[in-house]
């Protein structure tokens, strides 16, 4: 099948009201990806916490054979990042939360910091749930970048694993690429033609990527493309919300320079708003 797999999944957990949902989701994910689970808690191990944790794990209808639990002390972000390196995990699973609630927002911000530093893929769940919420529609970025091919492949792999039937490949085309400012009727016509051309180019490029994927991955999935002219990283999030996607798959940020900290760009828009569950594909660690 695919060359991409999430064999080892690390779950950072905290004793929040969402603990049960997070654990259940993690067990389910491990089941879908047939992977091994590594639970990491940053904090001191106490008998109560340990038994609570074990109790919840035991109560889940889905069980996994390969579970390990680690208790570490230190700065949450650094510790989790270190752990992900130590255990050579393929995927970090985090129960991030939507930004409405201040307390939750704080937890979400930890998730975001990890996303920025992690050397592996990260899955942010904005609404972990005890019951299974089926994943039906996946939106994946298709912009022109060397990473995109792997990201699209990963999206199809995930769609197959989770049973999603629909994938929308979104090509965000920066407005600067149109290079025609709309001032009057003539420039509008030129801009429209130019956009049409760009749209076709981008679509061919993305379709090409998908068609080169093994048919095992693509056969059962209804995939469509959609070009959007707009701010990169923002449009796709808004789109995911409009079409009510269940999962958004994105490239990891290529390089986070010093300036990127101050300028909101690309993936940062999505991390700030989390329109839906987000999977950030980063396969550098594997190569």
């Amino acid at each position, binding site marked *: 099948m695919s060359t991409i797999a999430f064999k080892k999944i690390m779950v950072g957990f905290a004793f929040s009201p969402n603990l049960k949902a997070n654990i259940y989701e993690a067990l389910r994910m491990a089941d879908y990806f047939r992977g091994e689970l590594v639970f990491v808690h940053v904090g001191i191990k106490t008998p109560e916490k340990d038994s609570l944790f074990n109790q919840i794990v035991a109560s889940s209808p889905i069980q996994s054979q390969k579970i390990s639990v680690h208790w570490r002390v230190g700065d949450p972000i650094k510790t989790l990042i270190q752990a992900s390196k130590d255990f050579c995990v393929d995927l970090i699973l985090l129960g991030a939360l*939507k930004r409405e609630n201040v307390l939750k927002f704080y937890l979400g911000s930890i998730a975001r910091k990890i996303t920025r530093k992690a050397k592996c893929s990260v899955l942010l769940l*904005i609404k972990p749930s005890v019951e299974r919420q*089926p994943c039906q529609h996946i939106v994946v970025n298709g912009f022109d970048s060397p990473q995109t091919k792997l990201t699209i492949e990963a999206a199809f792999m995930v769609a197959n694993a989770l049973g999603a039937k629909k994938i929308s490949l979104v090509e965000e085309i920066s407005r600067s690429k149109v290079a025609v400012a*709309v001032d009057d009727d003539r420039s509008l016509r030129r801009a*429209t033609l130019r956009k049409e051309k760009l749209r076709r180019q981008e679509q061919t490029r993305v379709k090409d990527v998908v068609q080169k994927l093994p048919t095992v991955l693509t056969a059962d999935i*209804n995939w469509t493309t959609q*070009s959007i002219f*707009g701010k990169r990283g923002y449009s796709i999030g*808004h789109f995911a*919300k409009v079409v009510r996607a269940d999962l958004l798959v994105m490239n990891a940020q290529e390089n986070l320079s010093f300036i990127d900290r101050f300028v909101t760009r690309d993936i940062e828009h999505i991390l700030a708003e989390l329109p839906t569950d987000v999977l950030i594909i980063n396969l550098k660690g594997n190569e």
Partner: protein
Amino acid sequence: MNKSNPFKQFLGDLPKNIFSGFVVSLIALPLGLGLAIASEAPPIAGIIAAIAGGVVVSILGGSNLTITGPGNGLVIVILSAIVGMGEGDLYQGYLFTLAAIILSGLLLFIFGFFRLGALSEFFPSTALQGMLAAIGVGILAKQFHVMLGFTNVKGNTINQLILIPNSIKTLLANPSNELVLASGIGILSLCFLFLYARIRNSVFQLIPAPMWVVITSIGVIYYYDLVLKTPEVLGPSLMITLPEDLMASLPRPDFSKILSSDFIGHTLSITLVAVIESLLSIKAVDKLDPLKRRSNINKDLRALGIATGISGFLGGLNVVTVIARSSVNVNNGANNRSANFFHATFLVIFILLFAEQIQKIPLPALAAILVYTGYRLATPENLFRIYKIGKEQAIIFVTTLVATLLTSLTTGIILGILTTLLVHVILNKSGVLFSRNWLKPNVLMYLEEETGNYYVSVKNFCSFLNFFKLKAKLDEIPPSEHAIIDFSLCEFVDHTVMEGLNDYSRSFSRQGGFFEIIGLDVHEAKTEHPFAIRKSLPDSSLLNFEISLTKRQKLLQKLSTILNWEYLPDPVSNYADLEKFFYFKTKWVNYRYNNLESKNKDFLLFDLSYSEGAFIAKEDLKSTFLQIKVPKKIPVFTLDKENFMTTILQLSGLQDIDFKKHPDFSKRFYLSGENIKSIRSFFTDKLIFFFESHPPYYLESNGETILIRSKERLASIQEIKQMLAFAEELLKILEKK
């Protein structure tokens, strides 16, 4: 239009444009003189501005039918610059102001060069109206005295307003011959201007009212001069004086104050008003253009900047685009920029040939024209119109008006912006919505690949603060296309945006496109006015639901009368049968609204508010559904595009029913149901072909009724019509079975 030979076309259109340019020059002459006098500049300054504008902008500009010249709005700022910087010496003040005008021309050019035209959207429309009204009051207050024959009433606008009864009293108490004649000319001119529009005679209307006033009053002066042999019946202070030799008497702009804060302040406010007035006028003229062209705003700004610079060097006022003269231009059949050029040419001819006659124009006649202009800017009708839109708009309007009158124009508009912001914060009971989302992108626009429609979704809030972002996207949609603007993710939409969208809607319908606004139906509006502020309703106030109809609702209403169906916009919570459908198994129905029901109760179309999940994971949704009763019992089934729902259904043990004979149908649709055998026999070739050849809807049968949904969002009127047609055809096929 003959595209192959534009030059021939241009030549053919030339007579029309020359004529139109001539008519415009008839109104531009008195206005140019009057506006210059009102600004305490030499009368010729206004004519210079009109000539410079007409020549430069017609060659370099980006708009088609606009006329450029000295503007009404600038009177107040230029007046305060001349009086303020002159410190008693008006001529010296004028020289300083010329420097400020040249500089503002440069700024205007830079504005256009960096394509900052869009920034003007940053002004809330009501505050702008308040500012314009204040300018109107300013002109009126000052010129009313001149109209009565008093030229030396000094002081700021408020003082001059207060002194108006005083001037009338003096006139009645001490009626010298000169005063009686002056005030007679002034008052009769004013009455004529008010009555002019009532006179419906095409020959008479050919000459614009201001020109009638000027010609008649020149006639009166000549009558006194030649028949009664009383030259100089009105003192020189009440007459226009033109320089003897235009070329020799060119003033020299004085740049010596250029670094003083005074100078910079005046330059900025002149530029601000010039930009605002020009852009408002350009937009308004585009709406009048019979050929539906779109002006290149930034190119026009650059041309106006150059024209202003030249005008300033020659001793003229700022060049802006002016709405009144432009509309005269359109009405007289102009169809390209040459009309603006000819208007300038005729002005040159007038000045060269009729300099003597022009000097016979009495100031009270010009003042009457200005009083009328001021009144039109500040007419109380404006306040009533704005009050109808909403009380809060009236508050913004009055605040800006009063603040502008009491302080300066820039302070006034800044206070207007702050008031608008405050009103929005109060209406929302919090400013978090604005502060958190102001600088973030909030607009998504894409071409829906299935339908070919442009879909625009707006998030968070949309007000004057970020309307430019939405506008930038809307400007990229060709107005001959179908655009759908969805506000269902947007909590607050203000008046500026509603008004702006109305402009778009008009330009789309003018060019054969569709511009539909959806997702505003459950936003609360305080008044019936279509431009009223709309705010997302909190759940609790749903019970005392009293909203005015949105455009979409009105269209639905219209549709209902065409179909002779019942239409009920109010939400109802009677949805018991809906929950029987599979679709709502995992969803929570809130209420149904915009119900459209056929007389025999077979068709029921409605918007539905429903939600998925709970607490933090709660997702509120709104979609349009159509429910139809079928003639006889049919199997229970669900038909969907191969996507969303399919996994849920598969989880509950239902499998996709495929037809070997129809691979395309099987691939595109997900069909499921308990009784596979009866479903298979129900789906005849004809029915399958019907589904294949129509847009894919979500369709669910519960045996007696069929539920149809197009998208998981509200459907536009067009989409609703398609849905209804789809359902009717489907029923026909089912009836034949």
